[in-house]
């Protein structure tokens, strides 16, 4: 799911794509689902960066 979101924002490019992905997940995902993602290193780099962003923001 996160990868799919990231793929659709990928066209915006690197950091912008990660920001957009993070914002999308923030808006539509329950925080427990975000927390439940656990290790995100196996994700698409944009999705992984988005989760890193989400965790920094809390």
């Amino acid at each position, binding site marked *: *799911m996160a990868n*799919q979101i990231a*793929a*659709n924002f990928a*066209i915006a490019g690197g950091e912008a794509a990660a920001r957009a992905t993070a914002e999308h997940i923030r*808006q*539509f*995902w*329950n*925080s427990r689902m975000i927390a439940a993602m656990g290790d995100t290193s196996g994700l698409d780099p944009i999705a992984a960066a988005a989760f890193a962003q989400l965790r920094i923001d809390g």
Partner: protein
Amino acid sequence: MLTEPQPYAPQADFGTPEAVSETMVALTIDGRRLTVPAGTSVMRAAALAGGAIPRLCATDSLAAFGSCRLCLVEIDGMKGTPASCTTPVAEGMAVRTQTPRLQRLRRGVMELTISDHPLDCLTCSASNDCELQDAAAQVGLRDVRYGYAGANHLDAAADASNPYFAFDPAKCIVCSRCVRACDEVQGTFALTIAGRGFDSQVSPGGESFLGSECVSCGACVAACPTAALEEKSIAAIGKPERAVITTCAYCGVGCAFRAELRGEQLVRMVPWKDGKANHGHSCVKGRFAWGYAHHRDRITTPMIRERIDQPWREVGWDEALGFAAARLKEIKARHGAQALGGITSSRCTNEETFLVQKLVRAGFGSNNVDTCARVCHSPTGYGLKATFGTSAGTQDFDSVMAADVILVIGANPTDAHPVFASRLKQRLRQGAKLIVVDPRRIDLVRSPHVAAAHHLALQPGTNVAVLTAMAHVIVTEGLVDEGFIAARCERDEYQDWARFVCEPRHSPEALAAVTRVPAGDLRAAARLFASQRNGAIYYGLGVTEHSQGSSTVMAIANLAMATGNIGRAGVGVNPLRGQNNVQGACDMGSFPHELSGYRHISDGATRALFEKDWGVALDPDPGLRIPDMLDAARDGSFRALYIQGEDILQSDPDTHHVAAGLAAMECVIVHDLFLNETASYAHVFLPGSSFLEKTGTFTNAERRIQMVRRVMTPANGLEDWEVTQALARALGLDWRYDSSAAIMDEIARLTPSFAGVSHERLDAEGSLQWPVDAAHPDGSPVMHVDGFVPGPNGKGRGKFVVTDYIPTDERTGLRFPLLLTTGRILSQYNVGAQTRRTDNSIWHEEDLLEIHPTDAESRGLAEGDRARLASRTGETTLRVHVTERVAPGVVYTTFHHPATQANVVTTDYSDWATNCPEYKVTAVQVTPSNGPSAWQEDYADLTARARRIAPAA
């Protein structure tokens, strides 16, 4: 005026349609001076002045025809006796409607008509509700001097083949109203006049009505002035004695109907001429398929059981609600509020939906509320909010009559939105151009007097690519509306988008390999769309139910903005909503991330407004969506679900996944009319009320809020909102709504776009289109007229969004070489809970798999053979229909019958932004089969066991 039941009387009929003109014409009729718009007929002018001229072939839903010759008048300076229906008014005209000569002529005409008509009026089913009888009375006919021995049609055989209405040619006066209604209003052209002269007879093309092209819309029946075409229910019951105006509960068109009754017995549903969505038209479902409301399967007593392997136990309301409340409280105490959730119904009223989401947020304490829009139009909500700033279609239905080119993409209006389709076809017959983008050759592509200029039969799942290629043509060929973009849209975002679509990889030629649409056709279609004055886009679930659903919606919005087709009549982006109140359910805050009026749950100010009104603290965290709830149920963190009016087991994708999720829960409360498929997994069954048994509002696809009025007492004793309120009270909430009007008052108080809405106003004005606020006190037929909705950043400019085409992960391959796509048929509705319990099944007894002749041949399948349909997810069996409507490599089926369980096959792939399931693309294999699949057999067995009801003690 509309609140109280009306004593039964036919609706006023002015004989010919309203003329719209700014020029006014003054004339005198029988010495009375009046002024009417130019183009008005003398007949209509006389009727407006209160003096109806006798007539039979004229009715104000049809163009004047001039055949019955009863409405003759004398006009100074005109020779002869012109027919008032076909004679337009002229300045200074002096008309006489009653003179000795006219009286003689009219009586002469009527005498001829009656000379070939049965004389047993008193025992006729139309007695005292017959325009022929009225006209005979008006002209003073007392005797038929020709005698009764002459030629006649009184022995003609009646045709009772249609389950809902009968045709008795002996009672037919050959006024052609039925033929014209079929042509002009419905656009099916099923009827004709066969023979000529005295032998002229109405004919459904030499067939019985059932065997003909007739779609049973009822337009002919409504138009018939006698008992020749009449509802069978009138013959069975008698003339109605009262009428209640209400709104149809089937699709998102939202047709207004007059429910006509004797006592509490519904006699017939007649489309209401003043209904602004349907203008007096209807389809076979709303018009006739209401018998389910009294079907023997209907459950009217609450039931409970400890475990789902037990039979149901019938109990009283208090016991059922107490049982449910205790379980909910216990689960909440054990697992917290996040273990509870609810599903609102887009079949129920705004008021009921609002209460369910309120129960979840304020009572359960979570935001775990979702609705069936998740599986249909959630991408519309996302996509239009992102581009236009609000989640709704931009136009009213009437707007289509001003469109010059119409793009229909991923929608099959003649089957799924038939009353709107009839309007669309009217406009096409007037000369508007049509572009159809659909993998299947839907009826609109070629039907009587309608032909699409272009049918782009794309590969399922490539909508975004097709729309991007169209945008490529429009931008690279300089067809964009620069003025509109400069004035109304964000410049930078437009430039990013324009650069993106101009890339050579987005040319029709480059994308043809993916879309399978010939580049020349696509270029021509794009040029046509961009070149006309008014271009309108209509779309349906063929757009949204894809892994790129939200992207496609945004690509549509981009296209509309690029061509300047927003903000006036005849243009716009128009989602054709599936369910009667899917727009309303979304408006009412049914999604886990937002409160009513599309305000995000994380927005503190909005939350504060609700918290103050409701007296509780709200969770700022978005809740779980339906698939998330089902996942959470399997990991044990979600345990209780209140489902109002939705059958997720049948309607949601990947049935095995849904069943496993439901089976893992400890408290499933199903609130419905029937023991639906989901109820097999329920612990509490709360009987629901039909739309005929409740008062509230529905909001249709054009944002039109219309009243649903209680026509009869609920069979279960309670309207659905009362049941939800009782459950809330059992949970300890102090809710005291005394009517659904009070709920609407709360909605208006808490929802800016509904600020001006109340039942009182709807009663007075018929309907309102939101937003109804200070800026739009009378509502908004067309949105974004002067600017887009100001977003959180307050700018109010259209935003182009770059929509990259990301193919679905669902791929065809050696094992699953075909693509399955799904849809609806005219006579059945969605999972068929209602229509299967009516005579509509005569048209569609089972779901069929449409397959191209070459694919059928290579598999050894012939018409009617049973086939096994298998995907990576599951398999089912159904019969095949071999047709060229589908392209080679594509198969199609409907999902109306639980025995088919088409969703056993669909996958859990979904829209990237909203999780809307990808119903429209599944890789499948089709092979010959000689019986039901194992799942179908197991499921039949499970359902039979799950539906057992213990005998009363």
